[in-house]
Protein backbone atom coordinates (compact mmCIF):
# COMPACT_ATOMS: atom_id res chain seq x y z
CA UNK A 1 0.00 0.00 0.00
CA UNK A 2 1.39 3.37 -0.98
CA UNK A 3 1.83 6.13 1.62
CA UNK A 4 -1.63 7.65 2.09
CA UNK A 5 -0.09 11.05 2.76
CA UNK A 6 1.11 11.24 -0.85
CA UNK A 7 -2.14 12.68 -2.14
CA UNK A 8 -3.17 13.22 -5.74
CA UNK A 9 -6.04 15.69 -6.15
CA UNK A 10 -7.88 15.83 -9.49
CA UNK A 11 -8.87 19.43 -10.13
CA UNK A 12 -10.88 21.29 -12.75
CA UNK A 13 -12.99 24.44 -12.95
CA UNK A 14 -15.97 22.99 -11.07
CA UNK A 15 -17.35 23.78 -7.65
CA UNK A 16 -17.05 20.11 -6.65
CA UNK A 17 -13.34 20.34 -7.37
CA UNK A 18 -13.05 23.27 -4.97
CA UNK A 19 -14.97 21.29 -2.35
CA UNK A 20 -12.63 18.33 -2.79
CA UNK A 21 -9.63 20.60 -2.47
CA UNK A 22 -10.97 22.31 0.67
CA UNK A 23 -11.79 18.96 2.24
CA UNK A 24 -8.27 17.67 1.57
CA UNK A 25 -6.74 20.89 2.90
CA UNK A 26 -8.78 20.59 6.11
CA UNK A 27 -7.47 17.09 6.71
CA UNK A 28 -3.84 17.64 5.73
CA UNK A 29 -3.12 21.11 7.09
CA UNK A 30 -1.85 19.70 10.37
CA UNK A 31 0.24 16.96 8.83
CA UNK A 32 3.91 17.86 8.53
CA UNK A 33 4.72 15.13 6.01
CA UNK A 34 1.78 15.36 3.59
CA UNK A 35 2.62 15.84 -0.08
CA UNK A 36 -0.09 17.10 -2.40
CA UNK A 37 -0.16 17.00 -6.18
CA UNK A 38 -2.80 18.91 -8.11
CA UNK A 39 -3.66 17.07 -11.30
CA UNK A 40 -5.49 18.49 -14.30
CA UNK A 41 -6.33 15.94 -16.97
CA UNK A 42 -7.92 17.06 -20.21
CA UNK A 43 -9.35 14.92 -23.01
CA UNK A 44 -7.98 14.62 -26.52
CA UNK A 45 -9.37 17.18 -28.95
CA UNK A 46 -12.57 16.13 -30.72
CA UNK A 47 -11.70 14.36 -33.99
CA UNK A 48 -13.26 17.16 -36.05
CA UNK A 49 -10.92 19.67 -34.37
CA UNK A 50 -8.24 18.83 -36.91
CA UNK A 51 -10.50 19.08 -39.94
CA UNK A 52 -11.36 22.64 -38.91
CA UNK A 53 -7.68 23.57 -39.08
CA UNK A 54 -6.68 23.14 -35.43
CA UNK A 55 -3.34 21.68 -34.41
CA UNK A 56 -2.57 19.50 -31.42
CA UNK A 57 0.06 21.90 -30.11
CA UNK A 58 -2.42 24.83 -30.19
CA UNK A 59 -4.96 22.68 -28.34
CA UNK A 60 -2.41 21.60 -25.74
CA UNK A 61 -1.27 25.18 -25.21
CA UNK A 62 -4.87 26.27 -24.60
CA UNK A 63 -5.41 23.48 -22.12
CA UNK A 64 -2.12 24.13 -20.35
CA UNK A 65 -3.07 27.79 -19.99
CA UNK A 66 -6.45 26.76 -18.57
CA UNK A 67 -4.67 24.43 -16.16
CA UNK A 68 -2.40 27.24 -14.98
CA UNK A 69 -5.43 29.31 -14.00
CA UNK A 70 -6.93 26.35 -12.13
CA UNK A 71 -3.63 25.66 -10.36
CA UNK A 72 -3.25 29.33 -9.40
CA UNK A 73 -6.76 29.45 -7.91
CA UNK A 74 -6.16 26.17 -6.12
CA UNK A 75 -2.86 27.39 -4.70
CA UNK A 76 -4.52 30.52 -3.34
CA UNK A 77 -6.96 28.30 -1.48
CA UNK A 78 -4.22 25.97 -0.18
CA UNK A 79 -2.05 28.85 0.99
CA UNK A 80 -4.82 29.80 3.41
CA UNK A 81 -4.08 26.45 5.04
CA UNK A 82 -0.33 27.06 4.87
CA UNK A 83 0.01 24.14 2.48
CA UNK A 84 1.53 26.02 -0.46
CA UNK A 85 5.04 24.64 -0.09
CA UNK A 86 3.91 21.02 -0.10
CA UNK A 87 2.13 21.22 -3.41
CA UNK A 88 3.21 20.20 -6.89
CA UNK A 89 1.18 20.34 -10.08
CA UNK A 90 0.76 18.16 -13.13
CA UNK A 91 -1.16 18.72 -16.34
CA UNK A 92 -1.66 15.91 -18.82
CA UNK A 93 -3.76 14.97 -21.84
CA UNK A 94 -5.67 11.68 -21.68
CA UNK A 95 -4.05 10.29 -24.79
CA UNK A 96 -6.14 7.43 -26.24
CA UNK A 97 -7.44 6.66 -22.75
CA UNK A 98 -10.32 7.96 -20.64
CA UNK A 99 -9.81 10.69 -18.06
CA UNK A 100 -10.22 8.24 -15.19
CA UNK A 101 -7.60 5.95 -16.75
CA UNK A 102 -5.24 8.92 -17.07
CA UNK A 103 -5.70 9.73 -13.36
CA UNK A 104 -4.93 6.10 -12.53
CA UNK A 105 -1.78 6.24 -14.68
CA UNK A 106 -0.49 9.30 -12.83
CA UNK A 107 -1.36 7.66 -9.50
CA UNK A 108 0.64 4.57 -10.41
CA UNK A 109 3.61 6.51 -11.79
CA UNK A 110 3.82 8.72 -8.68
CA UNK A 111 2.94 5.97 -6.19
CA UNK A 112 0.26 8.14 -4.62
CA UNK A 113 -1.51 6.51 -1.68
CA UNK A 114 -4.60 8.68 -1.89
CA UNK A 115 -6.55 10.02 -4.85
CA UNK A 116 -9.11 12.76 -4.27
CA UNK A 117 -11.90 13.49 -6.72
CA UNK A 118 -15.08 15.52 -6.60
CA UNK A 119 -18.40 13.90 -7.46
CA UNK A 120 -20.94 15.79 -9.50
CA UNK A 121 -23.96 13.66 -8.66
CA UNK A 122 -25.05 12.49 -12.10
CA UNK A 123 -28.28 10.78 -13.11
CA UNK A 124 -28.31 7.15 -14.17
CA UNK A 125 -28.76 8.10 -17.80
CA UNK A 126 -25.96 10.63 -17.63
CA UNK A 127 -23.63 8.10 -16.09
CA UNK A 128 -24.46 5.53 -18.76
CA UNK A 129 -23.81 7.94 -21.59
CA UNK A 130 -21.06 10.18 -20.32
CA UNK A 131 -19.57 8.10 -17.53
CA UNK A 132 -18.40 9.09 -14.11
CA UNK A 133 -14.74 9.78 -13.49
CA UNK A 134 -15.06 9.09 -9.77
CA UNK A 135 -16.78 5.73 -10.41
CA UNK A 136 -14.13 4.83 -12.97
CA UNK A 137 -11.39 5.46 -10.42
CA UNK A 138 -13.19 3.66 -7.59
CA UNK A 139 -13.83 0.59 -9.77
CA UNK A 140 -10.17 0.23 -10.62
CA UNK A 141 -8.41 1.25 -7.43
CA UNK A 142 -5.78 -1.12 -6.05
CA UNK A 143 -3.24 -0.36 -3.34
CA UNK A 144 -4.46 3.16 -2.75
CA UNK A 145 -7.40 4.97 -1.19
CA UNK A 146 -9.94 7.10 -3.02
CA UNK A 147 -11.68 10.03 -1.40
CA UNK A 148 -14.81 10.93 -3.33
CA UNK A 149 -16.03 14.33 -2.18
CA UNK A 150 -19.67 15.06 -2.98
Amino acid at each position, binding site marked *: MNDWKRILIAVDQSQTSIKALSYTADITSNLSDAELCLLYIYPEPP*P*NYYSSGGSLSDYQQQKTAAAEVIFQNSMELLEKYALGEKVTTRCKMADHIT*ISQAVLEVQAEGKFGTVVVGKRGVS*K*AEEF*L*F*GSISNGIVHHCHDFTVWVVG
Partner: protein
Amino acid sequence: MEYALDKLPQRLHGRLRHHRVTRSLRRPPQFFTDTSNFTAIDYGDIIAIDDRFLLVTGYTREGRFGIDEQVKPWVPRVEDLESEEKFILKLVFHETFDMQFGQFTINCYRNPEKEARVLELVKGHPHFMQGRSILDEANNLVRILDIVNGNRLDKFIHRGELSHQEYFYQKFPEVMRQFLKCVKGIQFLHENDLRHGDIRRDHIFVDRDTGLYIWIDFDYDFYMPERPFALDLYELGNILTYLTARARFHEKDILMHPDMGRAVLDTIVPGDLSVLSKNRIVNLKKLFPYIPDRLNNILLHFSHGTEVFYETVAELHDELGEALTVLG
Protein backbone atom coordinates in the same frame (compact mmCIF):
# COMPACT_ATOMS: atom_id res chain seq x y z
CA MET B 1 -16.09 22.97 -66.54
CA GLU B 2 -14.74 19.89 -68.25
CA TYR B 3 -16.84 17.69 -70.49
CA ALA B 4 -16.61 13.94 -70.09
CA LEU B 5 -16.18 13.24 -73.79
CA ASP B 6 -13.18 15.60 -73.94
CA LYS B 7 -11.41 13.79 -71.09
CA LEU B 8 -12.49 10.16 -71.35
CA PRO B 9 -10.31 7.72 -73.30
CA GLN B 10 -11.70 7.20 -76.79
CA ARG B 11 -12.45 3.53 -76.09
CA LEU B 12 -15.09 4.51 -73.51
CA HIS B 13 -16.96 7.10 -75.58
CA GLY B 14 -19.36 4.57 -77.03
CA ARG B 15 -20.12 3.06 -73.64
CA LEU B 16 -20.88 6.49 -72.17
CA ARG B 17 -23.03 7.57 -75.12
CA HIS B 18 -25.10 4.40 -75.08
CA HIS B 19 -25.41 3.95 -71.35
CA ARG B 20 -29.04 4.05 -70.13
CA VAL B 21 -28.16 6.93 -67.81
CA THR B 22 -26.72 9.24 -70.46
CA ARG B 23 -29.20 8.39 -73.20
CA SER B 24 -31.84 10.54 -71.56
CA LEU B 25 -29.52 13.37 -70.43
CA ARG B 26 -30.29 16.84 -71.78
CA ARG B 27 -26.82 18.21 -71.07
CA PRO B 28 -23.37 16.87 -71.83
CA PRO B 29 -21.91 14.80 -68.99
CA GLN B 30 -19.20 16.56 -67.02
CA PHE B 31 -15.90 15.19 -65.82
CA PHE B 32 -14.65 15.53 -62.23
CA THR B 33 -11.29 14.72 -60.71
CA ASP B 34 -11.91 17.01 -57.70
CA THR B 35 -14.98 16.08 -55.63
CA SER B 36 -14.78 19.00 -53.18
CA ASN B 37 -17.96 20.59 -54.53
CA PHE B 38 -20.00 17.43 -54.65
CA THR B 39 -23.25 19.32 -55.20
CA ALA B 40 -21.98 20.23 -58.67
CA ILE B 41 -21.68 16.55 -59.59
CA ASP B 42 -24.86 15.23 -61.15
CA TYR B 43 -26.48 12.15 -62.54
CA GLY B 44 -24.64 11.10 -65.71
CA ASP B 45 -21.35 12.81 -64.82
CA ILE B 46 -18.01 11.04 -64.59
CA ILE B 47 -15.81 10.95 -61.49
CA ALA B 48 -12.26 9.95 -62.39
CA ILE B 49 -10.50 8.40 -59.43
CA ASP B 50 -8.31 5.40 -58.69
CA ASP B 51 -7.58 4.99 -62.43
CA ARG B 52 -11.27 4.37 -62.94
CA PHE B 53 -13.94 6.34 -64.76
CA LEU B 54 -17.02 6.16 -62.61
CA LEU B 55 -20.36 7.14 -64.08
CA VAL B 56 -22.87 8.56 -61.59
CA THR B 57 -25.99 6.43 -61.98
CA GLY B 58 -27.97 7.58 -58.97
CA TYR B 59 -27.87 8.64 -55.34
CA THR B 60 -28.47 6.85 -52.10
CA ARG B 61 -31.22 7.95 -49.76
CA GLU B 62 -31.71 7.77 -46.03
CA GLY B 63 -34.43 8.66 -43.58
CA ARG B 64 -33.44 10.36 -40.36
CA PHE B 65 -34.92 12.26 -37.45
CA GLY B 66 -38.40 11.18 -38.47
CA ILE B 67 -38.00 12.84 -41.87
CA ASP B 68 -38.79 10.86 -45.03
CA GLU B 69 -35.93 9.50 -47.04
CA GLN B 70 -33.66 12.23 -48.30
CA VAL B 71 -31.22 12.10 -51.20
CA LYS B 72 -27.59 12.10 -50.05
CA PRO B 73 -25.74 14.02 -52.79
CA TRP B 74 -22.38 13.14 -51.26
CA VAL B 75 -23.13 9.43 -51.65
CA PRO B 76 -23.59 8.72 -55.37
CA ARG B 77 -24.10 5.30 -56.89
CA VAL B 78 -21.58 4.80 -59.66
CA GLU B 79 -20.63 2.33 -62.35
CA ASP B 80 -17.12 1.75 -63.60
CA LEU B 81 -17.38 2.44 -67.33
CA GLU B 82 -14.62 -0.02 -68.08
CA SER B 83 -15.46 -3.04 -65.92
CA GLU B 84 -19.17 -2.27 -65.43
CA GLU B 85 -18.71 -2.93 -61.70
CA LYS B 86 -21.08 -0.97 -59.49
CA PHE B 87 -20.06 0.86 -56.33
CA ILE B 88 -21.24 3.45 -53.87
CA LEU B 89 -18.96 6.44 -53.44
CA LYS B 90 -18.76 8.47 -50.28
CA LEU B 91 -17.47 11.95 -50.88
CA VAL B 92 -16.12 14.17 -48.14
CA PHE B 93 -18.87 16.06 -46.34
CA HIS B 94 -17.87 17.56 -43.01
CA GLU B 95 -21.36 17.87 -41.58
CA THR B 96 -21.88 18.43 -37.86
CA PHE B 97 -25.19 18.15 -36.10
CA ASP B 98 -26.71 17.57 -32.70
CA MET B 99 -28.45 14.32 -31.86
CA GLN B 100 -30.91 14.03 -29.05
CA PHE B 101 -30.67 11.07 -26.68
CA GLY B 102 -33.42 11.50 -24.14
CA GLN B 103 -32.67 14.77 -22.39
CA PHE B 104 -29.08 14.88 -23.67
CA THR B 105 -27.74 16.46 -26.80
CA ILE B 106 -24.62 14.97 -28.33
CA ASN B 107 -22.58 16.70 -30.95
CA CYS B 108 -22.04 14.35 -33.88
CA TYR B 109 -20.16 14.78 -37.13
CA ARG B 110 -19.13 12.95 -40.22
CA ASN B 111 -15.59 11.70 -40.01
CA PRO B 112 -14.29 10.38 -43.35
CA GLU B 113 -10.91 9.48 -41.84
CA LYS B 114 -12.56 7.29 -39.22
CA GLU B 115 -14.61 5.50 -41.86
CA ALA B 116 -11.43 4.93 -43.85
CA ARG B 117 -9.76 3.41 -40.79
CA VAL B 118 -12.74 1.15 -40.17
CA LEU B 119 -12.75 -0.01 -43.80
CA GLU B 120 -9.08 -0.85 -43.56
CA LEU B 121 -9.52 -2.70 -40.28
CA VAL B 122 -12.49 -4.79 -41.43
CA LYS B 123 -11.10 -5.76 -44.82
CA GLY B 124 -12.29 -9.32 -45.45
CA HIS B 125 -14.55 -9.35 -42.36
CA PRO B 126 -17.82 -11.02 -43.40
CA HIS B 127 -20.00 -8.80 -41.21
CA PHE B 128 -18.86 -5.41 -42.43
CA MET B 129 -19.43 -3.53 -45.64
CA GLN B 130 -16.25 -3.65 -47.72
CA GLY B 131 -14.50 -0.85 -49.50
CA ARG B 132 -11.36 1.21 -49.73
CA SER B 133 -10.37 4.83 -49.54
CA ILE B 134 -8.47 6.89 -52.00
CA LEU B 135 -7.55 10.55 -52.37
CA ASP B 136 -8.96 12.44 -55.30
CA GLU B 137 -6.95 15.09 -57.14
CA ALA B 138 -7.75 17.67 -54.41
CA ASN B 139 -6.84 15.26 -51.59
CA ASN B 140 -10.43 14.50 -50.59
CA LEU B 141 -10.68 11.11 -48.94
CA VAL B 142 -13.16 9.31 -51.19
CA ARG B 143 -14.44 5.95 -50.06
CA ILE B 144 -15.27 3.41 -52.76
CA LEU B 145 -17.74 0.95 -51.30
CA ASP B 146 -18.89 -2.44 -52.52
CA ILE B 147 -22.66 -2.63 -52.72
CA VAL B 148 -24.29 -4.98 -50.24
CA ASN B 149 -27.04 -6.82 -52.11
CA GLY B 150 -29.73 -7.47 -49.61
CA ASN B 151 -32.39 -6.04 -47.37
CA ARG B 152 -32.44 -3.98 -44.22
CA LEU B 153 -32.63 -6.21 -41.18
CA ASP B 154 -35.61 -4.33 -39.76
CA LYS B 155 -37.59 -5.07 -42.94
CA PHE B 156 -36.27 -8.60 -43.23
CA ILE B 157 -37.67 -9.70 -39.87
CA HIS B 158 -41.18 -8.69 -40.92
CA ARG B 159 -41.28 -11.19 -43.77
CA GLY B 160 -44.05 -13.74 -43.53
CA GLU B 161 -47.41 -13.45 -41.86
CA LEU B 162 -46.30 -14.57 -38.43
CA SER B 163 -47.72 -13.59 -35.07
CA HIS B 164 -45.14 -12.36 -32.58
CA GLN B 165 -45.16 -15.68 -30.78
CA GLU B 166 -44.62 -17.58 -34.06
CA TYR B 167 -41.84 -15.15 -34.98
CA PHE B 168 -40.25 -15.52 -31.59
CA TYR B 169 -40.10 -19.31 -31.67
CA GLN B 170 -39.57 -19.88 -35.40
CA LYS B 171 -37.42 -17.02 -36.65
CA PHE B 172 -35.96 -15.15 -33.73
CA PRO B 173 -33.35 -17.75 -32.61
CA GLU B 174 -31.67 -17.62 -36.04
CA VAL B 175 -31.99 -13.81 -36.12
CA MET B 176 -30.20 -13.74 -32.76
CA ARG B 177 -27.47 -16.11 -33.89
CA GLN B 178 -26.70 -13.82 -36.81
CA PHE B 179 -27.06 -10.64 -34.75
CA LEU B 180 -24.64 -12.04 -32.19
CA LYS B 181 -21.97 -12.13 -34.90
CA CYS B 182 -22.68 -8.47 -35.62
CA VAL B 183 -22.29 -7.68 -31.93
CA LYS B 184 -18.95 -9.49 -32.00
CA GLY B 185 -18.01 -7.30 -34.97
CA ILE B 186 -18.65 -4.14 -32.96
CA GLN B 187 -16.60 -5.62 -30.11
CA PHE B 188 -13.78 -6.06 -32.64
CA LEU B 189 -14.02 -2.37 -33.62
CA HIS B 190 -13.94 -1.23 -30.00
CA GLU B 191 -10.96 -3.45 -29.23
CA ASN B 192 -9.22 -1.57 -32.00
CA ASP B 193 -10.23 1.81 -30.57
CA LEU B 194 -12.80 2.51 -33.27
CA ARG B 195 -16.52 3.19 -33.06
CA HIS B 196 -19.21 2.31 -35.56
CA GLY B 197 -20.80 5.64 -34.70
CA ASP B 198 -24.20 5.14 -36.25
CA ILE B 199 -25.60 1.84 -35.06
CA ARG B 200 -29.21 1.61 -36.17
CA ARG B 201 -31.46 -1.24 -37.15
CA ASP B 202 -31.43 -0.11 -40.79
CA HIS B 203 -27.63 -0.15 -40.82
CA ILE B 204 -27.52 -3.93 -40.77
CA PHE B 205 -28.19 -5.51 -44.15
CA VAL B 206 -29.03 -9.15 -44.69
CA ASP B 207 -27.05 -10.40 -47.67
CA ARG B 208 -29.39 -11.87 -50.26
CA ASP B 209 -27.07 -14.73 -51.20
CA THR B 210 -25.30 -15.67 -47.97
CA GLY B 211 -27.85 -14.59 -45.35
CA LEU B 212 -25.04 -12.92 -43.42
CA TYR B 213 -25.82 -9.77 -41.47
CA ILE B 214 -23.57 -6.91 -42.53
CA TRP B 215 -22.92 -3.54 -40.90
CA ILE B 216 -22.91 -0.51 -43.19
CA ASP B 217 -22.13 3.22 -42.82
CA PHE B 218 -19.23 4.05 -40.53
CA ASP B 219 -18.67 7.75 -41.06
CA TYR B 220 -20.54 9.17 -38.07
CA ASP B 221 -18.52 10.02 -35.05
CA PHE B 222 -19.05 11.74 -31.71
CA TYR B 223 -17.02 13.03 -28.83
CA MET B 224 -17.51 11.32 -25.49
CA PRO B 225 -14.09 11.11 -23.86
CA GLU B 226 -15.03 9.20 -20.71
CA ARG B 227 -17.39 6.68 -22.34
CA PRO B 228 -16.22 6.58 -25.95
CA PHE B 229 -18.23 3.48 -26.82
CA ALA B 230 -21.38 4.13 -24.79
CA LEU B 231 -23.50 5.25 -27.73
CA ASP B 232 -22.62 2.17 -29.78
CA LEU B 233 -23.50 0.04 -26.77
CA TYR B 234 -26.80 1.83 -26.20
CA GLU B 235 -27.77 1.50 -29.84
CA LEU B 236 -26.95 -2.22 -29.81
CA GLY B 237 -29.41 -2.48 -26.93
CA ASN B 238 -31.99 -0.63 -29.01
CA ILE B 239 -31.57 -3.03 -31.93
CA LEU B 240 -31.76 -6.01 -29.60
CA THR B 241 -35.00 -4.66 -28.12
CA TYR B 242 -36.42 -4.08 -31.59
CA LEU B 243 -35.47 -7.54 -32.83
CA THR B 244 -36.98 -9.14 -29.74
CA ALA B 245 -40.29 -7.28 -29.91
CA ARG B 246 -40.23 -6.96 -33.73
CA ALA B 247 -41.33 -3.38 -33.09
CA ARG B 248 -40.76 -0.43 -30.84
CA PHE B 249 -43.25 -0.33 -28.03
CA HIS B 250 -44.30 2.96 -26.53
CA GLU B 251 -47.11 3.27 -24.05
CA LYS B 252 -49.63 4.16 -26.73
CA ASP B 253 -48.65 1.07 -28.75
CA ILE B 254 -49.52 -1.12 -25.77
CA LEU B 255 -52.83 0.61 -25.39
CA MET B 256 -53.67 0.08 -29.07
CA HIS B 257 -52.48 -3.54 -29.21
CA PRO B 258 -55.40 -6.00 -29.39
CA ASP B 259 -53.71 -8.51 -27.05
CA MET B 260 -52.44 -5.95 -24.52
CA GLY B 261 -54.41 -2.76 -23.91
CA ARG B 262 -54.97 -1.09 -20.57
CA ALA B 263 -54.47 -4.27 -18.50
CA VAL B 264 -50.85 -4.59 -19.68
CA LEU B 265 -50.16 -0.86 -19.70
CA ASP B 266 -51.15 -0.65 -16.03
CA THR B 267 -48.34 -3.05 -15.15
CA ILE B 268 -45.67 -0.78 -16.67
CA VAL B 269 -43.60 1.16 -14.15
CA PRO B 270 -40.87 3.78 -14.81
CA GLY B 271 -38.14 1.18 -14.33
CA ASP B 272 -39.46 -0.75 -17.36
CA LEU B 273 -38.66 2.13 -19.70
CA SER B 274 -35.46 2.79 -21.60
CA VAL B 275 -32.70 4.52 -19.68
CA LEU B 276 -32.54 7.29 -22.28
CA SER B 277 -35.90 7.20 -23.98
CA LYS B 278 -38.40 7.57 -21.19
CA ASN B 279 -41.44 6.37 -23.14
CA ARG B 280 -40.02 3.26 -24.80
CA ILE B 281 -40.59 -0.07 -23.04
CA VAL B 282 -37.58 -2.37 -22.71
CA ASN B 283 -38.99 -4.78 -20.12
CA LEU B 284 -40.54 -6.80 -22.91
CA LYS B 285 -41.45 -9.77 -20.76
CA LYS B 286 -44.39 -7.73 -19.51
CA LEU B 287 -45.66 -7.59 -23.10
CA PHE B 288 -44.62 -11.06 -24.22
CA PRO B 289 -44.51 -13.38 -21.18
CA TYR B 290 -42.84 -16.20 -23.15
CA ILE B 291 -39.58 -14.21 -23.45
CA PRO B 292 -37.06 -16.11 -21.29
CA ASP B 293 -35.74 -14.31 -18.20
CA ARG B 294 -32.18 -14.69 -19.40
CA LEU B 295 -32.88 -12.64 -22.50
CA ASN B 296 -35.14 -10.18 -20.73
CA ASN B 297 -32.47 -9.54 -18.10
CA ILE B 298 -30.16 -8.40 -20.88
CA LEU B 299 -32.79 -5.95 -22.08
CA LEU B 300 -33.21 -4.67 -18.54
CA HIS B 301 -29.57 -3.54 -18.56
CA PHE B 302 -30.80 -0.76 -20.86
CA SER B 303 -33.74 0.17 -18.64
CA HIS B 304 -34.25 3.13 -16.38
CA GLY B 305 -34.55 0.69 -13.47
CA THR B 306 -31.18 -0.97 -13.91
CA GLU B 307 -28.55 -0.89 -11.21
CA VAL B 308 -25.84 -2.21 -13.52
CA PHE B 309 -24.90 -1.13 -17.02
CA TYR B 310 -22.81 -3.02 -19.49
CA GLU B 311 -19.37 -1.46 -19.51
CA THR B 312 -18.28 -3.11 -22.74
CA VAL B 313 -19.78 -4.77 -25.79
CA ALA B 314 -17.88 -7.91 -24.80
CA GLU B 315 -20.08 -8.20 -21.69
CA LEU B 316 -23.24 -7.84 -23.78
CA HIS B 317 -21.96 -10.34 -26.33
CA ASP B 318 -21.15 -12.98 -23.73
CA GLU B 319 -24.51 -12.72 -21.98
CA LEU B 320 -26.36 -12.74 -25.28
CA GLY B 321 -24.48 -15.89 -26.26
CA GLU B 322 -25.61 -17.55 -23.04
CA ALA B 323 -29.20 -16.39 -23.56
CA LEU B 324 -29.17 -17.95 -27.01
CA THR B 325 -28.73 -21.37 -25.50
CA VAL B 326 -32.22 -21.18 -23.96
CA LEU B 327 -33.80 -19.93 -27.18
CA GLY B 328 -33.05 -23.17 -28.98
